[in-house]
């Protein structure tokens, strides 16, 4: 069984934020407003943090893109009472909106701030995609067209692309990748099976120094950063 992970090369990353915008476009994520940003109510599936160190003129700023880490030991899955978030066998942490009761425990428990609550209902936009699910009879946690108010949502590693791709026999990681990986103009992001030694991600991890965020918490995040 594959174990999907993502590798982000911070050396190649150009801080353009294409990943953030592409994710919003791909998944019909609602945009915020000035008030919502001040009150910290924006829905962000993918964010970028800016880290500064040093003093003029010896200053250093790192721009770190942060999607959901899809941890192997996810604290959010442990605390969800309604089994609305769970780890799929292929490692993707899925948010099942049907079951979500909106208790927000997962937001408290997530060490990466990857989750957002819908404080209001999402406006429908003309550019929202209205794709059909894989199987009309399935009870899949299908996120389109939008999620309702009162539920928590987060990055899905674009599992809708992966599942569709697998059905069509495409190679995941090369032919089919999440929207953020596809959008990255400098090819700084990679996606693939961490358990496959021949995949691009495994090769990169073997060749370069890497780190994960908040590793000391033991969540075993599957988004790994290659250092500069």
């Amino acid at each position, binding site marked *: 069984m594959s174990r999907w992970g993502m590798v982000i090369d911070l050396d190649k990353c*150009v*801080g353009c934020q294409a990943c953030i915008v*592409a994710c919003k476009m791909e998944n019909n994520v609602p945009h*915020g407003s000035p008030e919502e940003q001040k009150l910290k109510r924006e829905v962000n599936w993918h964010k970028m943090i800016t880290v*500064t160190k040093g003093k003029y003129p010896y200053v250093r700023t790192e721009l770190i893109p942060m999607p959901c880490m899809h941890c192997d030991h996810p604290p959010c899955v442990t605390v969800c009472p309604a089994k609305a978030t769970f780890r799929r066998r292929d490692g993707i942490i899925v948010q099942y909106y049907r079951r979500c009761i909106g208790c927000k425990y997962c937001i408290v428990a997530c060490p990466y701030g990857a989750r957002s609550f819908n404080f209001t209902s999402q406006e429908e936009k003309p*550019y929202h995609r209205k*794709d*059909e699910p894989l199987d009309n009879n399935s009870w899949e946690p299908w996120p389109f067209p939008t999620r309702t108010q009162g539920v928590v949502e987060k990055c899905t590693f674009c599992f809708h692309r992966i599942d569709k791709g697998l059905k069509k026999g495409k190679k995941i990681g090369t032919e089919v990748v999440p929207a953020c990986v596809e959008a*990255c103009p400098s*090819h700084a992001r990679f996606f693939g099976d961490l358990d496959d030694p021949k995949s691009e991600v495994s090769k990169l991890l073997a060749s370069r120094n890497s780190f994960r965020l908040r590793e000391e918490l033991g969540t075993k995040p599957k988004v790994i950063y290659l250092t500069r």
Partner: protein
Amino acid sequence: MKRSKLTRREFLKFSGIAGALIGTSQLKETLTEAMGSTLPQNKKDLDEKWISTSCLNCTSRCAIRVRVLNGKAVSITGNINSKVSEGKVCPRSYIGLQVLYDPDRVKTPLKRTNKEKGRGIDPKWAPISWDQALDEIIRRLSQLRDIGEPHKLLIFYGLNSISTEDLIIRFGEAFGTLNIISQDGFDIETEKAGHWMADGHYTHTAFDLDHTHYILSFGGDLLESSKPLSRFLRKWGKFRRERAIRTKVIVINPRYSLTAAKADEWIPINPGTDGALAMAIAHVIISEELYDKVFIKNFTEGFDTYKKLVLDQYHPKNVANITGIDQETIIRIAREFAITKPAIAIGGKTSIDWPNGSYTSYAIFCLNALVGSIDIPGGVIYQEYPDYKPMPKLIEDEISRKGKLKPFIDLRSTDKFPFAKIVTNQVPESILNDSPYPVDIAIGFNSNFNMIAPNPERWDKALKKLPYYIHISPFISEMALYADIILPSTTFLEEWGYDHSPPGSGFAEIRIKQPVVSPFGESRSTADIIFEIAKRLKGGVMKSFINIGDNSKGFVKYRTETLINWKDFLEKGVWIGKSYEYKKYDRIFHTPSRKFEFSSGNLKHLIAKMSKGKADNINLLPHYQEVKFLGTKEKYPFILLPYQPLMVIENGSQNYPWAQEVFLPMCGIGWETLVEINSEVGKDLNIKDGQMVWIESPFQKIKAKVKFSEGIHPCAVAIPWGQGHYSYGKWQKGIGVNPNEIIGVDYDHISGQAAFFNTRVKIYKI
């Protein structure tokens, strides 16, 4: 007993409520599912199309593919057939969806009913029909021609596709006016002038990023506002980690830009002294004989004069005081630049949009020649342009011929700007002074000059004075507030056109623009509007617009069908010219000596032709001149350095939430303008981080929130461009401030480029 009955009753009530709740929840869930399934149930119901077109949110004009579901554009990706950026696009392409579906777009032509014009005054737009609008416009335009004064038509154009630009220029020339003013005078004309002084190409510089090993960037925000941006973003990834040799990048900039954060070294420099640094680096390279002797000997002219100047006046010891960079660093960087081959030196806006900026650009460009990085893999390359099928000769009648003999409104080719090709920022002064002649009609093709110009107040006054102004754009920009008639044009996703990137790739590449959805409301593409106006104007104008396709689609087909089969073009979306040929030294230098010139023969030639003996004390060599600032250091201690973050959409509007939310990535915040000041300096001023302050120049003052930064030179403050809109738009109106409002008017007199960085300001608490 009484209490038991109550308990039972309570219990029944409880369970009743519980049951009802569960029942309602199930009902609600079913309803939600039912409402949610307005999505089609079968794949057959989904009408899906992928259409190749190109973006127009900046001048890079990248090729994109748009996914259209049931007639709505829902997704944008890059076009893998495009080789300029290897199919990649910057995030602004995706924001094209919000540009297309901007809720505040203009639906119908609008006529102004409130005669008063000014900022904050409601024009009281009344919707009119296209025929009414066009009738009025044609009447005024014909009148102007009839009285034999076509030169009094002033045409502004901002960001339009190349095909539309070609038509705008043809229209102006057929009409009889050469007052066709692009926004280039606000961009980076100094780079073009510097390039031209050396080798005769009045264009932006193209660099072979695939093969370069060392980039010395003077003030260029390579990863934020360089062009073509998508190419820089893609090639950055390539030359950092996808080759055997990693390119080293040095950024010289008073501000720690995003590019500096990603580069290997950031060297803060005193603002406006980049010319001196370039000359000092040349000094080291020449004095240590690290220059490419073969190239210099065989393919350059004027090296000895240049060498003398450099060795005499630009010793790193002297320059260290001027630039604030210590001597050791200058020497080290110069040595690295010369030894690491191939290396390129790039001059960016922050370094060269100053008075005397053309010479700074020339000085930087010469560094490339010194190390032989001209037309070699990894060096400066010369952009090939597509050979569009030429349009038939312009039909000039007597009126238009006479009109084109008149002096330019922007005073180019006059003593004030003898060598400039466009001096956009001169126009308001000319309008206000009625000199060389008063303007009668102006047309703005998606221009928004009173936002992007330094000192917009002057533009506002000039626009107010215009007797008749027609504005053509999809939304009501700040410039449109002064219009008498607004014609709604389509956005780039709804129109036909062809485009090619600014110089960068070397090889030529054309991108098609084709409509992905039907036009919004009654909007029409600018190209079609021009065709319609030309048709109705009759005379020479009409005659110049026949046999070129008759409408926008036809025009694109006409121009490109000699290069690529139309059907292929529609599907592939791009046409790519032949691969780049290097070392064309026999024909690439358009100079009197047919070689790269360290002492500008082109400039000398032009001076001789124009001033007829006067002005022979114009410097022909690259050099540094101390900047005259607007405002004294005592009263205005800081130098204002505006900058353009990536998320600025260059079409004149910023009404796009996806861009606004993440507007300032270096500060981790959006929806705002922050004025960045050095943290120590800020503390000395008794200001607190996050406080609102006034930023006052000798001309105006604005207020913004302050941010303490470790990444800005102590003598400067930085404010981003892009905010401060006030004309329309829920997502931009009243958000942030526009630093241009406090910048004074100054020029680089060689190129006519508006100077943006030599205004001094003071900061104080509100």
